[in-house]
């Protein structure tokens, strides 16, 4: 163990080096940090469930080892280490600072749309995998997305829980949908808010306001197209949004590989809605006309 590099509400994260000289992150969670034993056990069980799943997807931070000291009242997990914010995978223990999406956002304010889409697709894919394994993340936000060898990964798995545990209000304000966290849809909502922050440079509480500078350049057109994906991820009317993380990932992949087709599809979706409404009005008019005609005929026959 070399030095502490992070501290959260339930414990601390240390920079460590194994016998082979590889740098690792070690998270230590102490029971005394909780009011009672239940949340401590819940966090430990979450890690146990996440540990085998974590190494099966590139978008999840690898948990390499989990240990527990019952007498001292703590457990720990050894994880792969995030890149250094300055020197990337070249780690200098004295100056090391983990690179997170939160830091990228603070430094750059706004990320290029193409980068947001690439990152969003990677995290949506990881989320889909997590959900398929019956787990929910519950705390997706820029500072919980780290980079390992340049690949974005979901980290801080402290709040990972079983999907069957149901709704709760844990998480970070602004990334939690009105109906609460702890559901697949809530994780998708949070990812939508992450993409909103990094693509517009605005705070999540300003959602859905667009950035001040919107010109005629291709970047703005791309932002407007990405905006449609973000709005669908963060819908208040849940049935109108993405139902699975894979759906969102497919939309982001469609953006990456064929923007024009996606643009046409979005436009045709609107046109088909307009045609449906016009069709319904015409059908209603015809129906009323027929009824009115029948009434006239009945009156005439009397």
């Amino acid at each position, binding site marked *: 163990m070399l030095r502490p590099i992070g501290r959260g509400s339930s414990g601390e994260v240390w920079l460590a080096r194994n016998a082979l000289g590889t740098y690792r992150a070690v998270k230590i969670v102490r029971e005394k940090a909780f009011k009672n034993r239940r949340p401590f056990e819940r966090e430990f069980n979450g890690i146990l469930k996440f540990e085998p799943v974590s190494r099966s997807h590139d978008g999840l931070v690898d948990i390499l080892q989990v240990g527990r000291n019952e007498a001292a009242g703590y457990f720990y997990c050894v994880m792969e280490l995030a890149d250094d914010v300055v020197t990337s995978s070249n780690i200098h223990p004295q100056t090391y600072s983990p690179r997170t999406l939160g830091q990228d956002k603070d430094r750059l304010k706004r990320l290029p749309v193409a980068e947001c889409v690439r990152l969003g697709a990677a995290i949506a894919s990881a989320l889909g995998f997590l959900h398929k394994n019956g787990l929910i993340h519950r705390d997706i936000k820029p500072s919980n997305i780290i980079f390992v060898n340049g690949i974005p990964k979901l980290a801080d798995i402290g709040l990972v829980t079983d999907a069957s545990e149901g709704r709760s209000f844990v998480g970070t304000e602004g990334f939690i949908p009105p109906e609460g966290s702890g559901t697949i849809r809530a994780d998708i909502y949070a990812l939508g808010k992450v993409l909103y922050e990094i693509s517009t440079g*605005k705070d999540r*509480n300003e959602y859905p306001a667009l950035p001040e500078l919107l010109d005629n350049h291709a970047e703005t057109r791309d932002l407007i197209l990405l905006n449609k994906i973000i709005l669908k991820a963060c819908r208040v009317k849940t049935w109108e949004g993405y139902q699975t993380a894979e759906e969102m990932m497919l939309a982001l992949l469609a953006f990456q590989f064929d923007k024009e087709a996606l643009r046409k599809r979005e436009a045709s979706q609107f046109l088909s809605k307009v045609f449906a409404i016009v069709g319904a009005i015409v059908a209603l008019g015809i129906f009323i006309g027929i009824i009115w005609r029948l009434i006239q005929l009945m009156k005439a026959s009397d």
Partner: protein
Amino acid sequence: MSQTMTSQTEDFIPTRYSLLSRLQNRDDKDSWKDFFDTYWRLIYSIALRSGLTEDEAQDVVQETIICVAKDIDKFKRDRMFGSFKGWLRNLTRWRITDQLRKRKPRAAGKNVSPAEENTRLPETSEIPDPADDGLEKIWDEEWQTNLMDAALERVKRRVKEEHYQMFDLNVIRQWPANKVAKTLEVSVAQVYLAKYRILMLIKREVRLLEKQWDGSK
């Protein structure tokens, strides 16, 4: 909403939590959260414009809302208190005066004992005069602005996000409708429709807010 307003809102989150915990014995906690979200900017802004510091203004927000929570039933029963707008203005003024009284002497070089510091009354010029027309005017302006902001915030949560974006560009940022349509890749008719619907909803929400506390009298 500006960036400043957002950071202010975030700064106020601890205040809201601590206030709600002070009101935790009330069974209508949600409506007090709503009350806080609707009126804190108004009270805070008046407190700052009365010369208080940010910390003092936050205290004024807390204490005023506690007073409202404590006396709202009395206010609803008794017509003597007048309108809710006037009653809230008076409560805010009195809490501002309380904060000014708490201040320690600022004049350098004054040799004041701790006992004197605690009992010192503010200078006459430090206390806002309840009959001051200037403050009355500021209150009226802030009241209207606050009602509009609160109504917009409520409507924003209810309308489709695309419609809010069209409204934001067209009405708040005053872009021409055709520029909004071109940027957002929608039709001009959609922009006008979104603007009309949201303006209607805001008007209705302002009317509701105006009646919310006076209506029961």
